[in-house]
């Protein structure tokens, strides 16, 4: 016990005497927290839209008019032809183009299928996705009103849309967006109410997603990066040899290193929560002790990983590269900044090995949804198992390395 205490003291003394490490621990997180949430913003405030009306009917005019009542759409007016629209999209003057075909009104009255083409500039895929969604909603809403007015005439309106990037257009490649064309039946159309409520993030405020994500990155960085460099540094300067000739046990030495960084990580997490509350106005919806408890487990996973990397590396450069590689994989796969739903099946399988993907789930559930223990139990168990495995691995590989 006294041995571990003196090791903890040593580690703290070293951290606080190392200006570079201190700045990594204190300044980097603050900067990340203060700047990143304001840049990584997927929020759509304005969508520029233009129309090509080949029908020139009352209905087509009504449809175009219905976009004016929306705050998010800014109309760039009626265009004559596709070439003009193409040119505008290339110069980023419009995000969306709506094309109403000839005989649209007639077809509608005659109960024939007809289609409105929605073209979106998919260079900004988020904008394109959300934009076509909104368009569908507005046109769908109009069709409902129309159908309600024209009962009992049995009509179908189908909307299909295509996302096109301005760049891809030239090569004739079209990306069909997965917007299903939904036939609307007059008999029950009046009862159907399309409404979008984004649960747990009602204002679609992306800071609510980004800020917890940064919290996750912070904890991971402290846990993994700093420790990965720590042990291998002792290898480089030779102090580890002096320690290895003493009767100290390997697990004692590792624990003496782990506890200080674990405490630092928890302190950083706490500071992060405070910043989150007072600067971004996001408070923890769920139980704080539960959140801290799972974070403690996650930190042990990351600390163990850091020490594992450290004990298999020859020098700090090597372990830095390994951490960097793993870190990028973790972040991109975990769904911290990008939705995992769109990923292929194999990526989901890899994610079963990615501690960050479990932890971000916990963070989102507890901070945003206010979930209780039952709904994060799986994640907690997985993270605990990971912590045990990786830390055992770290002790074993450190023991092997010093033989």
């Amino acid at each position, binding site marked *: 016990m*006294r*041995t571990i205490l*003196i*090791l903890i003291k*040593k580690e703290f*003394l*070293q951290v606080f*005497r*190392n200006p570079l490490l201190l700045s990594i621990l204190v300044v980097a997180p603050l900067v990340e927290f203060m700047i990143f949430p304001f840049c990584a913003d997927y929020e759509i405030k304005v969508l520029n839209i233009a129309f090509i009306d080949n029908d020139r009917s009352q209905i087509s005019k009504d449809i175009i008019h219905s976009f004016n009542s929306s705050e998010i759409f800014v109309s760039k007016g009626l265009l004559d032809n596709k070439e003009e629209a193409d040119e505008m999209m290339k110069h980023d003057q419009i995000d969306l183009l709506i094309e109403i075909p000839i005989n649209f009104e007639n077809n509608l009255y005659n109960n024939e299928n007809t289609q409105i083409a929605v073209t979106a500039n998919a260079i900004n895929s988020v904008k394109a996705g959300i934009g076509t969604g909104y368009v569908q909603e507005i046109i769908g809403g109009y069709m409902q009103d129309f159908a309600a007015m024209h009962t009992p005439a049995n009509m179908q309106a189908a909307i299909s849309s295509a996302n096109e990037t301005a760049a891809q257009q030239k090569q004739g490649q079209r990306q069909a967006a997965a917007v299903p064309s939904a036939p609307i039946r007059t008999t029950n159309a009046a009862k159907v109410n399309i409404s979008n409520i984004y649960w747990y993030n009602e204002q679609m405020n992306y800071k609510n997603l980004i800020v917890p994500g940064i919290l996750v990155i912070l904890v991971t960085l402290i846990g993994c990066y700093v420790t990965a460099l720590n042990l291998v540094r002792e290898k480089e*300067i*030779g*102090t580890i*040899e*002096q*320690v*290895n*000739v*003493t*009767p*100290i046990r390997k697990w004692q030495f590792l624990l003496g290193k782990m506890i200080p960084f674990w405490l630092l990580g928890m302190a950083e997490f706490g500071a992060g929560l405070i910043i989150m509350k007072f600067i971004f106005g996001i408070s923890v919806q769920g139980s704080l002790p539960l959140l801290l408890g799972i974070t403690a487990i996650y930190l042990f996973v990351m600390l163990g990983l850091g020490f594992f990397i450290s004990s298999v590396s020859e020098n700090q450069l090597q372990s830095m590269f390994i951490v960097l590689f793993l870190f990028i994989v973790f972040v991109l796969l975990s769904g911290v900044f990008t939705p995992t739903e769109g990923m292929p099946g194999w990526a989901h399988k890899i994610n079963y090995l990615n501690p960050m993907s479990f932890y971000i789930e916990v963070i989102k559930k507890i901070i945003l949804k206010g979930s209780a223990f039952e709904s994060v139990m799986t994640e907690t168990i997985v993270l605990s198992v990971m912590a045990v495995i990786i830390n055992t691995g770290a002790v074993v590989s450190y023991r092997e390395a*010093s*033989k």
Partner: protein
Amino acid sequence: MFSIEANQLTKQFGTFTAVDHISFQVNEGEIFGFLGANGAGKTTAIKMMSGLLLPTSGTAMIAGFDIRTQSKLIKRNIGYMSQKFSLYGDLTVFENMQLFGTIYKIPRKELKDRIMNSLRELDMEKQADTLVDSIPLGWKQKLAFATAILHRPKIVFLDEPTSGVDPIVRREFWKLIYLAASKGVTILVTTHYMDEAEYCNRISIMSEGQIKLIGTPDELKKKMEVNTINDVFVKFVKR
């Protein structure tokens, strides 16, 4: 009983044999010198005897303990100082000694007394709270030695303790070694300063992993018919 007793000790790294069947004995309180060119296998031999490396074959008894099976007990009874200075540069003199003394489980009060005593012997009392990084190399080496014997080991392994140190500090360093030996500590020291070899009770000359010559400095000089250990070494290498 011998303090150190090596028997056919061998270490291979892949196909390269770093230490090749060496056998020798060192008495209690003896200062035993390991001489040899760079790469002769001195450091590897020391690492095996201090429990840092397992031998490929052969064995050694250190302070009565087997290096293969009793490395924990060995570690408790030896001190070690490597050719690379390896105290923590970002800790103070006192903090370093306190750290290692605590690892060896010296009781708190006793430890403080021992640290103060040994700093007094080194004439470094004023430097107790100085960061180790900011003291000169020669002093660092003396400090490393004092730290290595703080827990009063039976044997101390010194791997090129004086490389890069000026002659005055080297002389002071050897005074410390003599002082320790006079208290019954066995010293095994590697060096390539031939004048230092003269200070040893007995020396061995290693080459290509093997011990080629062993004996007191006078015996070796007589055997090779020269006046200094330096000449012994030169003549040996030429042969």
